[in-house]
């Protein structure tokens, strides 16, 4: 009898144990895909942050332990991670995730690739002879990869099979809707100069022509000679230059400035306008996995080509989307118009063109730049939080302050309390205007921790003149007034 009970207890234990699939994803975009499709049934570790070039990484011990603990490795493949993943895999001593095992999933092995090279010759740069591995910027291929991934996850966790499949289809539907929208937006686009061959799939999908590459050859940094030739080729044309965080801004800046010069002196003949090359830096600082949630969810807030000001324009046009889980920092020197931009949301300034679109039923908590400290009604800190309906459990750094009267707090402590008054509530969008004002370094660290631990169903918009405190926070940075 005892034995049976023990056995059934053991069985119960086995059944109730979480059937989580540990997934190691090499890049954050694949991490997003795994999380979107796997939901609660997966635990994802992203090996490389989005601001790193996945070509050039080092096999670090932290990667090896992530691979050691993984049931499934999801990589981009087609030799994109050739420089580090084999070494990390060998160091991980995990036979479950070797090539050919159910634990090995390579995105590029699931879809057809473009740009197959006819020769594997490195004098043509760091070529990938089997095709362009940068499939992750192609929503259609990502949808296909998602479907294959759902099948694979179902193999590892059969109980979740139907759910994975539904999520993959949902992802594909959402992506498809986006693609239709993007195609419309990109219709008739004059063309794009890429830094590296990393957006080719997307541009092929959108039908936007590629006008050239900043790199003379894949993996070779731009030379002055190559850039000047490029300027010559692009003379008189319009377009955008697309590059990412880990690609040097020097080449794109040079090209943009030269293309501007190509506008030519007045009276030189030919159209004087429309020859500019805009710089687009696609910001991939999405940060650690947690925030990579369903980026396909509808944005909480969209700025579309907003020009804001008072009597005349001060700042803009600015566009961005804020999704749940995002932390977006508007950064720029004092007087660059950051607060004016926020004013467009709160009504303190005027929207002169463009539009600000709020998500349905969006609740906003706004922390002003100089919070009013009312000394006539000396509230205690916890009372202030109660009044502002910041009912969430306050973090460690705030607890010593709770019993104190707000007029006894230092400027930095009061500021931190105000930040929590916004973050501790239920608002889905929190706007913080210069939150580091009056703060000493320890309060700034506490603030960064608060932002880091921000809920994944809300977005935070931070206005600041100094983004350094966001270093440890997975935030997107939008430089204003550049």
């Amino acid at each position, binding site marked *: 009898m005892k034995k049976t009970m023990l056995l059934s207890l053991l069985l119960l234990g086995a059944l109730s144990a979480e059937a989580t699939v540990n997934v190691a994803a090499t890049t954050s975009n694949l991490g997003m895909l795994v999380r979107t499709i796997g939901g609660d049934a997966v635990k994802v570790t992203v090996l490389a942050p989005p601001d790193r070039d996945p070509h050039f990484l080092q096999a670090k011990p932290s990667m090896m332990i992530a691979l050691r603990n993984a049931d499934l490795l999801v990589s981009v493949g087609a030799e994109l991670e050739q420089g580090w993943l084999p*070494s990390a895999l060998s160091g991980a001593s995990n036979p479950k995730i070797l090539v050919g095992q159910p634990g090995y999933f390579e995105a590029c092995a699931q879809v057809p690739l473009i740009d197959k090279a006819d020769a594997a010759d*490195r004098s043509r740069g760091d070529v990938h002879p089997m095709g362009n591995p940068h499939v992750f910027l192609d929503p259609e291929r990502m949808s296909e990869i998602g479907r294959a991934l759902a099948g694979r996850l179902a193999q590892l966790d059969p109980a979740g099979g139907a759910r994975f499949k539904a999520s993959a289809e949902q992802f594909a539907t959402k992506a498809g809707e986006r693609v239709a929208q993007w195609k419309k937006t990109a219709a008739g686009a004059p063309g794009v100069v890429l830094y590296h061959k990393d957006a080719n799939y997307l541009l092929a999908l959108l039908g936007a022509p590629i006008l050239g590459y900043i790199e003379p050859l894949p993996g070779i940094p731009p030379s002055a000679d190559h850039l000047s030739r490029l300027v010559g080729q692009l003379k008189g044309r319009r377009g955008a230059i697309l590059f990412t965080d880990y690609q040097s801004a020097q080449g794109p800046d040079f090209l943009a400035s030269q293309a501007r010069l190509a506008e030519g002196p007045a009276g030189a003949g030919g159209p004087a306008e429309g020859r500019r090359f805009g710089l687009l830096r696609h910001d991939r600082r999405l940060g650690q996995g947690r925030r990579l949630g369903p980026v396909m969810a509808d944005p909480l807030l969209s700025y579309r080509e907003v020009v804001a000001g008072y009597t005349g324009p001060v700042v803009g046009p600015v566009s961005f989307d804020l999704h749940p889980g995002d932390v977006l920092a508007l950064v720029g020197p004092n007087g660059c118009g950051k607060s004016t931009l926020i004013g467009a949301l709160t009504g303190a300034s005027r929207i002169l063109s463009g539009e600000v679109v709020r998500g349905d039923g969006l609740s906003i908590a706004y922390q002003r730049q100089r919070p009013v400290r009312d000394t006539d009604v000396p509230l205690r800190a916890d009372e202030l939080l109660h009044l502002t309906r910041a009912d969430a459990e306050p973090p460690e750094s705030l607890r010593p302050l709770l019993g104190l009267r707000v007029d006894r707090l230092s400027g930095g402590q009061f500021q931190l309390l105000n930040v929590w008054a916004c973050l501790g509530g239920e608002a889905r969008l929190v706007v913080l205007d210069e939150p580091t004002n009056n703060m000493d370094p320890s309060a700034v660290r506490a603030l960064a921790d608060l932002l880091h631990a921000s809920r994944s169903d809300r977005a935070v918009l931070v206005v600041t003149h100094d983004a350094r405190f966001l270093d440890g926070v997975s935030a997107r940075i939008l430089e204003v007034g550049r």
Partner: protein
Amino acid sequence: MRFPFPFAGAAVALALALAIPAVGQDAPDERKALEEKLRALEEKQEETKKALEALKASLEAPPPAPRSTGPVEAPGLKPLDLGSSGSTGQVSSGTSFNPALSVIPEGLYYNDNRSGGAAGLFGAADGFAGTPVGEGRDLSRGLNLGETELTFSGAVDPYFDVTAIAAFATDGVGIEEAYGRTRSLPAGLAVKAGKFYSDVGYANKQHPHQWDFVDQNLPYEILLGGGLNDVGVQVTWLPKAPVYLLLGVEAFQGDNPGVANVLGPDANPAFADGAGPRLFTGFAKVSPDIGYSDALQIGLFGGRSSLHQEQTEQEGLDGTAWFAGTDWVFKHDSPEPFGKNDLVFQAEYLYRDKSLDRVAAEDPALVGRPSTARQDGFYVQGTWGFAPRFTVSGRYDAVGAFVNQIDLGDLGSTGYDASRRISAALTFNPTEFSRLRAQFNRGDAVIGGVRESFSQFFLQYQLSLGVHGAHKF
């Protein structure tokens, strides 16, 4: 291929027009039969016409969509037929059944202010003179071809990987490493067997082309015979844990100038002849996760050799040796392009203890007396990517740094001064596959109590041809 239909119709009509008058005047039933024939022909013509139209239409229309890709319609994108759970394969340009191959030639220009003898000064330094040390780089002043490394690697079967690295020098070929390693042992275990660089310390397992400097650091060069590379077996264990902890033990045959110099009775009849394995080592490496951008690895290691022999003109020494040390590595990986602002700091400390007996000597009175050497060494070095593709490195290393004691039992014991060196290197990596380096060394070795200082200058190129070598941590 498209058939001009009106032309075909005209041809049929013409044929009919020619045929009918020839038989027109015959009996009415014949005429009836003819009329029927004509009707049949007209019907047939109509059919042909329809068929041709259909063919034409099918040629002009786009081909039917092969399979719906769901809500995302991509005309050019046909998903690969992979079954329900996707491919477990790899998209690779490597030839699956042949080993991955790479060739790394190296060339050097060298000069020093000691008529080419600067590199040998540390081997003659107090405390180390007459003892076996690493062979060093053995460069002549002027142009040199370094060793050309030829690497083969690949999976043998589902159970083993093999790596074989041969070093081609102008005077012959040596096996640098040749080992098999298990692929599929459970529980994070791996076994390696063959000739290989030991995993003790941090710099030990690096090949010369992975060094941040042209030459090996002093503690490895002088105390470990240039690095521990021997025939042996290694077992490592990486437990499933939140933090990286690697534990390993190794058994080597025992053939290393620094700690397991085995000469045998052939060199001196008084020397013992011990069977292998004679050198056992152990190591532990731990690496806390300190974020994406930074990595820290701390290691402890040690080893003991059951046989170490040294032979000079005057005497023969026979005994045992052990060593222990610690290695620290910190790396910062900056998001900036081409290694800009990447940082590497590494430091190792190595202690070696040789307990030897004088088994033969010119002066028979000395036979049987002990000779114990307790010596240490360390290096600290840093590398900074000050510009894209450019790094600058600095190193300070010393042997006999804190302890340099030779103990001759009741004949007394002598402590010697440290010999040391400072190095600076500038490296340019045009791509991941090529490297150009300039290095300057300034050092002083204590010889007979006198500091003998020297300067060395190196220019080096390394070119890596073949498969993409993986960057080990």
